[in-house]
């Protein structure tokens, strides 16, 4: 876990404030941003990968069976996947409180 805010002392910063853990932004839960989330109907899904390629947050991943699902830790609920899906297999659904 990357130290942040209250924890990081000045002596603990790397030289030149360099960040040495590549990709540690993956600790950040951008999924907290969304108010709607994508729900995939696998009966309509043709496993084309359109949703996966167009997600700006790389939040869509391929399952073992070759279907695609949203990684809710990162998904910001932008709705691009639902709009671009060629078979309209994805529906954006309101997040409950």
């Amino acid at each position: 876990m990357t130290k942040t805010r209250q924890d990081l002392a000045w002596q603990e910063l790397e030289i030149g404030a360099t960040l040495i853990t590549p990709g540690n932004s993956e600790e950040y839960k951008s999924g907290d941003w969304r108010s709607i989330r994508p729900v995939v109907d696998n009966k309509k899904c043709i496993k084309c990968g359109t949703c996966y390629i167009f997600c700006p947050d790389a939040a869509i991943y391929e399952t073992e069976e070759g279907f695609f699902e949203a990684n809710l830790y990162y998904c910001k609920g932008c709705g691009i996947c639902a709009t671009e899906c060629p078979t309209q297999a994805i529906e954006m659904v309101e997040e409950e409180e």
Partner: protein
Amino acid sequence: MEIVEPTNVYAYKLITKKEYFAPGHRACQGCAEALAVRLVAKALGRNVIVASATGCMEIISSPMPYTSWRVPWIHVAFENAAAVASGAEAGMKVLMRKGRVPKKKITFLAMAGDGGTSDIGVQALSGALERGHDFIYICYDNEAYMNTGIQRSSSTPYGASTTTSPAGKVIPGQMTWKKNMPEIAAAHTIPYVATACPSYPIDLVEKVKKAARLKGPAYVHILSVCPTGWRLPPELAIKAGRLAVETGVFPLYEVEHGRYRFTGKIEKLRPVKEYLKIQGRFRHLSEEMIDTIQKRVVEEYEKLEKKVEMTEGD
């Protein structure tokens, strides 16, 4: 090369699954610029060194102590991405020549937004292109200074409403035409210039790969739809990019060693109205202004067609 229609898309799975641009970045919902960065990262892989200008992509990807970059990445200032990349390229060249670093192919990438390229970054870009460094310069063009709050840049298109070219009662938005950066880059007679859009991901990836393969400077100009700044719903980010290409507002083409070639020629351009009307930043346009835009778009497209003919690019 044909535009890939959404229905033949299994080819998307041939692009590497690796994510060199990690999730958890702070880009807005539906940011097509972040998508473009993600695709470029896939195109270039791990053997790359990136020099970034200040801008949206820099801010959202590197809030200390977090970083979304899984490749070496350096940010120095706003206008010098091309200069920093030049230094990295030259320095590495010497290190390999002197045997201090084992020889291997590393791609040098400079990335900046439209502000950091066509305004404040033009000098450093021009210098780097003229000196002939072996690097790629990518301009992520969201057509305004989005990071600082949607102010106009020289890349803002005619008629667009931004916070420093607002659609007012007397002056209805941006009154000058978008600076043609790809042409400026091409005028430096560099080996490769291309335009791309993340709505056409395979085209974009192929162009960036080609830029990396060719020796010498390459310039790629990527139209990056910004739902926040262009005032359209985030889910339409990809569609807007597609309409920009299909209406001829943003033609996809390459200039390889001076030879112009369309990559996916649109046989019949759609009316620009279809592109303009889905964006809030154009909502105020009069019929007359839309007409002016339509005429100019067709004019520029025909100029491009002539260039293709003249340089026998096809």
